[in-house]
């Protein structure tokens, strides 16, 4: 029984890591008032860049760094369009998704003449934390995890501290709730939102990188396959709070783990594997409908901010 629990936990951690990182990315952007439906695209470009950079340098840490840069680069047009040019933020996000998928697959085909990158050999490996990884049940999953998992945990905690404890975070949230109020208090709304969206790009790309150079070992057009949208859902599910989003992403990973465990225990004799596969999604909806309900978005989210002092 214990090892089953350990297995479930391990799957949960594995599956939710990229979601957590991307959701934290979304958190910064949306808390500052900019809708980020582009998480999917930002994860995609991160996964692509990480794979290519790791293949080129042989160093997955450089891959992670390059991925973050690419995330910033692709978040930039989203920021520019929705902040500087006052475009509709959903429209701009959808465009980024197209842009990222198009660019990355185009480049893969151009660079490797193939639908996917070659296999990345130098991926990030599990990093046991000596001692702690021997703890039963949680040891193997939480303390013998991929570096990205540790990063995700640290990022979650840092996000909380930055958003709720520092002046920067307070200003960022103020900008997302009532930008004009923030402006009258001397906060530069435009710069704040730019910063938030760019951070969002870096984190989402980091999440994507985990898919191509930690859990996985290549990039193709199916590498991200909707996880950016799930991360967005986790962000909303988690009520735009770092720990809420962390919890929601983990919940989703947990549901995936349950569905897989079902197959191990021969549940497929009674229900089809497709039905088991629906479980994570059904559970999420039930959880939302039953316990979570209405989530209150940052008040100024999605709204174009008009400055008059040009």
């Amino acid at each position, binding site marked *: 029984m214990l090892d089953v629990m350990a297995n479930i936990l391990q799957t949960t951690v594995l599956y939710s890591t990229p979601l957590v990182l991307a959701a934290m990315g979304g958190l910064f952007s949306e808390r500052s008032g900019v809708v980020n439906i582009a998480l999917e695209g930002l994860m995609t470009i991160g996964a692509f860049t990480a794979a290519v950079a790791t293949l080129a340098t042989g160093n997955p840490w450089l891959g992670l760094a390059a991925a973050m840069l690419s995330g910033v680069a692709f978040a930039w047009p989203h920021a520019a369009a929705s902040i500087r040019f006052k475009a509709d933020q959903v429209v701009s996000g959808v465009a980024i998704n197209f842009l990222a998928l198009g660019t990355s697959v185009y480049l893969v085909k151009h660079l490797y003449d193939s639908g996917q990158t070659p296999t990345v050999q130098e991926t990030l490996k599990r990093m046991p934390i000596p001692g702690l990884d021997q703890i039963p049940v949680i040891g193997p999953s939480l303390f013998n995890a991929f570096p990205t998992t540790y990063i995700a945990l640290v990022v979650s905690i840092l996000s909380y501290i930055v958003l709720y404890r520092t002046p920067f975070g307070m200003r960022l949230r103020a900008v997302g709730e*009532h930008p004009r109020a923030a402006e009258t208090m001397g906060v530069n709304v435009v710069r704040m939102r730019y910063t938030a969206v760019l951070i969002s790009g870096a984190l989402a790309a980091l999440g994507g990188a985990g898919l191509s150079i930690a859990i996985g070992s290549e990039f193709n057009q199916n590498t991200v396959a909707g996880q950016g949208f799930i991360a967005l859902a986790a962000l909303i599910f988690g009520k735009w709070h770092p720990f809420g989003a962390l919890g929601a992403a983990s919940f989703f990973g947990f549901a995936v783990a349950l569905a897989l465990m079902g197959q191990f225990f021969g549940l497929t004799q009674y229900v089809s594997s497709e039905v088991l596969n629906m479980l994570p999604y059904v559970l999420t909806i039930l959880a939302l409908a039953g316990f979570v309900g209405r989530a209150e978005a940052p008040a100024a989210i999605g709204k174009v901010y008009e400055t008059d*002092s040009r």
Partner: protein
Amino acid sequence: MNAVEMRGITKRFPGIVANDQVHLSVNQGEIHALLGENGAGKSTLMNILFGLYQPDEGEIFIREKPVKITGPTKAAALGIGMVHQHFMLVEPFTVTENIILGAEPTSRGCIDRHRAEREVREISEKYGLRVDPTARIRDISVGMQQRVEILKTLYRGAEVLIFDEPTAVLSPQEIDELMEIMENLVREGKTIIFITHKLKEIMRICDTVTVIRRGKTIGSTSVKGTSEQELASMMVGREVSFSVNKQESRPGKTVLKVQSLTVKDSRGVEAVRGLDLEVRAGEIVGLAGVDGNGQSELLEAITGLRKAHAGDILLNGEAITRLQPRAIARRGVGHIPEDRQKRGLVLDFSIGENMVLQTYDQTPFAKGFLLRYPEIFRHAKRLIEDFDVRTPDEQTHARALSGGNQQKAIIAREVDRDPDLLIAAQPTRGLDVGAIEFIHRRLVEQRDKGKAVLLMSLELDEILKLSDRIAVMYGGRIAGWLNPKTTNEEEIGLLMAGGKVGEEVAQG
């Protein structure tokens, strides 16, 4: 010494010159009133002083030195603080967080909460502005919120404070308290620029008044040497009548009867508790009360927007307690809601569409399930003319209208539906005297046509002037009935605060 001087300020917006060579000079240590009709350009001028807008032309001097105010930060550095017409508060934040935003005390990179709260407490005690530093904005009253706005400016060391229509949203008690605070501030050496539409307030507290009309300075005068009447005509450019000409009311049958009604608010607390109320045809019943004593919930229950927990509501003798809002409206209830932009209008619809927001599916505006836009626009055209709504045409989006004209459009719509009962909630909030005059006339006209009018207002002035009977609400009940002819503001205020009054008019 001049604390502030603005010379030849011009600010153009697309299609309009909001400020046209405006001149303003404010003495150190005075309370300087800025008076003008809606849209005269007062807020624009103050936004320029606060650095939110850049003037197209003109110069600004602070303490006799020329300055360029490039943004709110610069304004704060120059000692200018502004309390905005629409509150600039972050609702989910605490009082302290709102005050320190942008100038946070930190220790080791994190916000030093304790120090911040201590500082807020200190300033609030110094100026007599009591607030709870840890309360959330969304949980405190409007009056409290305003204090937070004032504290924000003081926290930044403001010497010149701009108050843009601060009293429009306050109850009489809160206004009194605010006046006291303002006097305190002046005593501490601050200078105040005070925008209000209420001439009485200017007479009461200000030293100097500057009047602007259509973006131009009309003149400046000492308050001592002027009168309300003179100020009004300076501002509007014509004579304004303050008293409403109305005949004795001749109440007819009972139109609205509310019996031991109990209504819960959004948090499930009983906001209205066993309330009884009657409004008869041909009378205006004024509903006075400090904001938050159940008035809003009462009106929402009558109009069907909120479920009654217990009790009955009868319209012309028939129960409407459990009917849907639409059914109630169709039975003859008109409603001018409190918050016009949020509840009264669909800002992205044309005026024409807004004029049929309840009746769009009835003849002549619809035939079967198809809309008849020609009829809708014809209807709107007529109302625009009848009610003097200033708009380019009936196809203009409601968003493009000024607040006063938006309000006129709503009143036009509700009155035109010819309801037996007209509920008017704060119908003149934020409007200038000209517009107020117009709306008051319309309400009395309805009464004289034999309609029942229920007027909810925080302006005691308005209540006293218009009502035939006054009901004062306190703690979810009618605390007492007063006769406007024999009572006065003090008496109403006392009831509003939960006190007792000797003379009351009999109900019914």
